[in-house]
């Protein structure tokens, strides 16, 4: 067991409603490492985040987050849930949304004119400005967040997750519903945060390609099994064929992008909800081949 691990899972398993989602997950993440949780849709990747947050108990194995049981160190975890965009008519500034990440759990209201008298307030203002600067959102942080683009909103929400200087950042599909340049931009930003701030990042993703070059390790989950290690060892024809139990081929495009071909269909239970998602994902990857 590594002593300075931010989080570690040993043979962890999770079941929801009596159904075993995944099992046999081993993972250890150190400060400044960037780890992706991959796998087909409906396999329970987001459930992994819930286990790390402590909102869902592990069915087997051991889970340690920041040296404690999950949920005990919530103060030091930044969390970005899977989401749709803010409503276009929402007239609240981005900077206010970021600010809630800092003191949103405190009772009461901020007092008017406190900036003039309270040094705590000035320090808080400074921290919010600093973190907005870090994610490159200064240009639009004072506009209503509903009027910001999807990529701009995502940067502001990453700032919100970072504002308390967490040691661990849990991101659930932060690149979802972004166009390709924005995916690349956000991926580069997350990598920069990892390195600069020495934050450990665990990111759920359904497409590994935008983050492939930044990853220290991946966890690949399929129903029933899981494999973890460097991307170059896990996302291979051999490993995935073994995991899925059916022939799967991993192809590498000229630009380094990975394409998984011949994966089994998503479980029937989830095929409706994720039908278009799934084909979209494959469409992306085929595009990389051309």
């Amino acid at each position: 067991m590594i002593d300075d691990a931010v989080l570690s899972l040993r043979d962890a398993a999770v079941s929801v409603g009596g159904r075993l989602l995944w099992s046999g997950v081993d993972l250890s993440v150190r400060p400044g490492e960037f780890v992706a949780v991959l796998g087909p849709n409906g396999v329970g990747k987001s459930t992994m985040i819930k286990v790390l947050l402590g909102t869902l108990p592990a069915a087997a194995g051991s889970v340690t987050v920041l040296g404690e049981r999950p949920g005990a160190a919530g103060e030091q975890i930044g969390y970005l849930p899977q989401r749709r965009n803010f409503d276009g008519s929402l007239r609240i500034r981005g900077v206010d949304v970021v600010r809630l990440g800092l003191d949103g759990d405190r009772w009461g209201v901020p007092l008017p004119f406190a900036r003039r008298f309270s040094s705590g307030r000035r320090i808080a203002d400074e921290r919010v400005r600093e973190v907005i600067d870090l994610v490159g959102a200064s240009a639009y942080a004072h506009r209503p967040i509903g009027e910001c683009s999807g990529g701009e909103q995502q940067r502001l929400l990453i700032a919100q997750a970072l504002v308390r200087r967490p040691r661990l950042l849990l991101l659930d599909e932060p690149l979802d519903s972004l166009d390709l340049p924005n995916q690349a931009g956000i991926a580069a930003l997350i990598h920069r945060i990892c390195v600069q701030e020495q934050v450990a990042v665990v990111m759920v993703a359904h497409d590994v390609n935008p983050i492939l070059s930044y990853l220290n390790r991946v966890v690949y989950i399929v129903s029933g099994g899981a494999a973890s290690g460097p991307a170059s060892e896990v996302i291979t024809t051999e490993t995935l064929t073994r995991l899925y139990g059916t022939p799967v081929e991993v192809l590498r495009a000229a630009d380094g992008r990975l394409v998984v071909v011949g994966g089994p269909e998503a479980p029937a239970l989830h095929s409706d909800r994720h039908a278009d998602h799934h084909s979209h994902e494959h469409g992306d990857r085929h595009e990389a081949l051309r």
Partner: protein
Amino acid sequence: MSVFHDSYMTTALVAGTGIALACGLVGYFLVLRAQVFTGDALSHVAFTGALAALAFGIDLRVGLFAACVLIAVLFGALGRRGRADDVVIGNVFAWVLGLGVFFMTLYTTNQSGSSNSSGNQTVNVLFGSILGISSGQAVTALVIGIAVSLVLLLIARPLLFATLDEAVAAARGVPVRLLGYTFLVLIGITAGEASQAVGSMLLLGLLAAPAGTALLVTDRPFVGLAVSAVLGVFDVWVGLTLSYFVPDTPTSFWIMAVAAATYACAVAYSRMARRRRRPGVTAAAS
């Protein structure tokens, strides 16, 4: 000022101020959380509660508050995370209105001897009677209004967090569910109180108009909260004054007219502001 020479005007101003403060503050979150329909439904619950109390011959306000708070909690229990969805509200709303009609019939037939007074009471419940309340009732209204405002200010920041970002707030340890219920109870109390002033039919205007106006003129949440409260008080004061100077016109009409006019001005203002901004944006982009 001559307005204050008449004691019933002072009484109305005292009661109206408490009610307007609560409506402005609660209304801001109502609009932000897209729960305006909840407010609408609860204002009609006030109608049913009042008529039930009248039918059973107990204090009208007991019925008002009991019905509003109970149904508010029911909304939360039927919804998700202390926030009711539209289908639930729609169904309960229709059922409660039906009950209201039932109690109204019960009340008017029992009071057949003096059908005129029972008719008046029904009209008061529907359209308000702020000029008819006693000074004791006015002080009660002010105290309740201030109490609701204080509780809302106490939970304002975590409630805003839970409103904008439920999952993150919950992960941070904000009691999202409890806040949802507390807010529903606050709406219930506010609806029960305000229906005495402007009536259950017009209550929604006092809840939604100042808040809608505030959200149009500022994008800072806590400034918006203050603006909404101030606008609520402004609407009630100006409405009362106008009804004093224009004889034989209903107060509720003036309060709603002022609220609607302020909202219309804010819409015009924000349209103009946006149009002024847009050419600048395209110029910068090109």
